[in-house]
């Protein structure tokens, strides 16, 4: 229900206080105040801590994998353990780390502030979804402790119905996790629709909000299908319902359809929020109006939509009909177009900007480079005849690490460094941030470029043991992984240092025009001490800062008090 009627609002300038005494981190104290909080910022931080833990676990498992692969034959893991390790690495990295990373952690923290809202629409639901996530992880950890899983993160039947490992608990865990993802999506959609500050029209939404919107739509539409798929798999194991199990008359390829109907859109759950972060970072550090606002905003929605129709590109060799393969291949290519539009728009934003290569911007550029490589190799995999050769080889492994690690994780790191001052009110060491960014960049390429080559040469994935010809590539790759590990250790320490005795951050250290920088660092308990009023877009760098710091003073329920000093009278659209 948008009303276009302009309403006269009396607004006042609110210059954010520097280094406030009371902010969301210390307005309440004690463990319980965290565990029972409904503040979206605190929930965001709790997610951030959880995903950091899971990234650590997943990363250590990756190093274990890489170490085993140093030499062809068995060195310190046996085949069973190796299979469990890559399954857990994949499942943890995807379901426990990357899917909730930007939406649930960064998104929760930043989305309401960017909208000028006090909180998400359903704060208690938000907390509930964090606890659902926790319960899901507990299930999974129990599954790991009591006998692991060795199906690969894809749980293909019939292997997953036959193997003796703990598939049941693990799938239940992920099933539960799905609800957390769904609830976050529901919450975000409603928040974006209903909770925008006065004047925050659709055309003034920060692009990060647009991508979270697109992501939430995917989460809401795709995750239920994962839920039903996993439930059917659980039933397949518990009761032998036979829908997917060929031994009982079922069809294993149908399982793959079901699985990828979620899991392909899920890869866009994993990248689209990253696009949002990158848009913010590039515009801020180029101090320039974003190029092609609507193109970037709408291409997220286009990706979300087309992304639903391409799942079968994971099944070109699986025995689906040639007709279906053709359709899927065709649609797969269409996803590349809106993605390319984004890339080019970002480049155009940098053109004639005033570029400051601070750590977030550095990560954004690493993102651009690595994600483009990942995307191009995705195009290669989408080409039918080439995919027949490359399917299930290390080429695919390299592709998805380039898009997930090189793409989304870099975007996450860009966002983390970008919003860090807003989160904790502290700065980090710029020097160490650059060192660790460089190490991660070098290590990453060393780890995954050789994988493209060995994949194209025919090295199959999920191989614990390989023929000697591939050894040099594997050794390079392992070295790269270690270098990355060093990079992350450095990051861990300088971030820790920043938390403990970092320099105090200003409210707007980057000179951004976006709304979240117009409040204090760390943010106030209810985000703003006033109801912000938005008259300019978040990328209007040509307008003076003072015009971005407007608001209505108000009591707890928004009814305005008489402003003491009336500085500006602005015309804006009313609250939708």
């Amino acid at each position, binding site marked *: 229900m948008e009303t276009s009627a302009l309403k006269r609002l009396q607004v006042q300038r609110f210059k954010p206080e520097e280094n406030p005494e009371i902010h969301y981190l210390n307005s309440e104290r004690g463990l319980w105040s965290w565990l029972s909080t409904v503040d979206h910022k605190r929930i965001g931080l709790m997610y951030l801590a959880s995903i950091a833990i899971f990234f650590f676990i997943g990363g250590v498992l990756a190093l274990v994998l890489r170490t085993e692969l140093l030499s062809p034959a068995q060195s310190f893991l046996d085949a069973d353990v190796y299979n469990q390790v890559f399954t857990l690495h994949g499942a943890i990295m995807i379901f426990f780390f990357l899917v909730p990373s930007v939406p649930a952690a960064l998104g929760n923290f930043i989305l309401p502030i960017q909208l000028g809202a006090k909180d998400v629409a359903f704060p208690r639901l938000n907390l509930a979804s964090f606890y659902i996530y926790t319960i899901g992880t507990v299930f999974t950890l129990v599954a790991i402790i009591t006998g692991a899983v060795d199906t690969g993160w894809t749980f293909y039947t019939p292997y997953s119905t036959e193997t003796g490992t703990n598939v049941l608990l693990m799938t239940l865990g992920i099933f539960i996790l799905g609800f957390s993802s769904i609830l976050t999506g529901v919450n975000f959609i409603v928040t974006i629709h209903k909770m925008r500050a006065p004047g925050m029209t659709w055309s003034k939404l920060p692009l990060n909000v647009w991508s979270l919107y697109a992501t939430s739509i995917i989460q809401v539409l795709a995750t239920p299908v994962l839920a039903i798929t996993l439930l059917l798999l659980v039933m397949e194991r518990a009761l032998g319902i036979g829908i997917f199990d060929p031994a009982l008359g079922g069809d294993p390829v149908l399982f793959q359809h079901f699985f990828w109907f979620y899991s392909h859109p899920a890869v866009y759950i994993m990248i689209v929020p990253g696009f949002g972060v990158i848009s913010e970072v590039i515009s801020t550090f180029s101090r320039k109006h974003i190029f092609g606002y609507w193109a970037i905003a709408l291409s997220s929605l286009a990706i979300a939509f087309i992304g639903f129709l391409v799942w079968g590109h994971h099944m*070109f060799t699986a025995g689906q009909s040639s007709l279906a393969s053709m359709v899927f*291949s065709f649609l797969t290519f269409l996803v590349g177009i809106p993605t390319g539009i984004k890339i080019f728009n970002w480049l155009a934003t940098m053109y004639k900007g005033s570029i400051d290569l601070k750590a977030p911007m550095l990560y954004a550029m690493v993102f651009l480079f690595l994600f483009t490589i990942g995307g191009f190799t995705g195009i290669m995999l989408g080409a039918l005849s080439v995919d027949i050769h490359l399917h*299930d080889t290390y080429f695919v492994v390299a592709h998805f690490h380039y898009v997930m690690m090189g793409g989304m994780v870099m975007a996450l790191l860009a966002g983390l460094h970008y919003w860090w001052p807003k989160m904790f009110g502290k700065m980090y060491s710029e020097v160490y941030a650059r060192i660790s960014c460089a190490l991660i960049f070098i290590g990453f390429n060393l780890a995954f470029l050789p994988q493209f080559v060995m994949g194209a*040469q025919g090295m199959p994935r999920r191989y614990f043991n390989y023929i000697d010809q591939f050894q040099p590539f594997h050794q390079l790759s392992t070295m790269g992984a270690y270098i990355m590990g060093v990079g992350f250790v450095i990051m861990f320490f300088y971030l820790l240092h920043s938390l403990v005795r970092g320099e105090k951050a200003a409210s707007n250290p980057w000179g951004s025009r976006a709304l979240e920088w117009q409040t204090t660092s760390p943010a106030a308990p209810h985000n703003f001490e006033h109801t912000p009023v938005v008259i300019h877009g978040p990328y209007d760098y040509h307008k003076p800062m003072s015009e971005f710091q407007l608001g209505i003073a108000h009591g707890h329920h928004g009814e305005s008090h008489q402003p003491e000093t009336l500085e500006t009278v602005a015309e804006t659209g009313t609250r939708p």
Partner: protein
Amino acid sequence: MDKVLEFLLPPAKSTIAGQVDGLFIFILAVSAVLLVGISFAIIYFSWKYKRRSEQDTTPVITHNTKLEVAWSVIPLILVMIVFGWGFTGYMNMRTVPTDAYEIRVVGKSWLWEFHYENGTVSVNELHVPANRPVNLVMSSNDVIHSFYIPDYRVKRDVLPNRYSNVWFEAMETGESVIFCTEYCGRAHSNMIATVTAHSESDFENWLATANVIDESLSPVELGKELIAKNGCNACHSVDGSRMVGPSYKGSWMAERELEDGSVVTVDANYLRESILEPNAKIGAGYDPVMPSYQGLLSDREIDAIIEYIKTID
């Protein structure tokens, strides 16, 4: 260019390989050009437009329709070329020439069985005639496997409940490796076989003699050969190390504890049963994963294997 090809791709030994490689190189080249352009722009812009002072102002450029159309339409055209090319290549892979020589393939955890028209069976070694289309009709005994010959650029999943097929025409004689590329459990990475392309006459020759037992061999020698030929050593070692199955070393007349707690002596009957009905008695600590060799090994061959196992200690 050829050097690059050689570095990136395995040797192209089948008729369709050239087509796949052509498209691969095309995408690679286009991507490389675009990537260089993008990287150049990133580096150039961040050098040229480096922030000089905090007071920098920037022009307001919000969009440019011509540019935006260009960078949507040009990639669209490129990907459509890629789509068409890939699709025709794929259709060539799927349309089996009518005169193709057919071989039946069975995937089992974790070995490949090849059945030829004259009843010859080979395990983990596929023999095909070169310069003649060969069609493999494949099925699986248990979980999904995937049949992959990198040198021929062919791959197809092998399903338990229906037949899938793959065809190729080898352009030269020689050996290539076959992988299983669908994750199928513990010894997935050991599910490796070889394909040997022979000239037509060599192939006929091989087919006629493959399953004929070499009378000059002693039973022990024959047993040793059979064990190698039937893929037993994917799971059983002769040096005492534990693989998927128990080692043969010292097993003869040893006491075996079974899953249900009972104890048996490894005698000829037990060995015979273990080969024909492996899941009848499961050794403690092992999984019931050994495929049955019923119909693959004759009585005489089983005797020979037993003779051979006796000698390993």
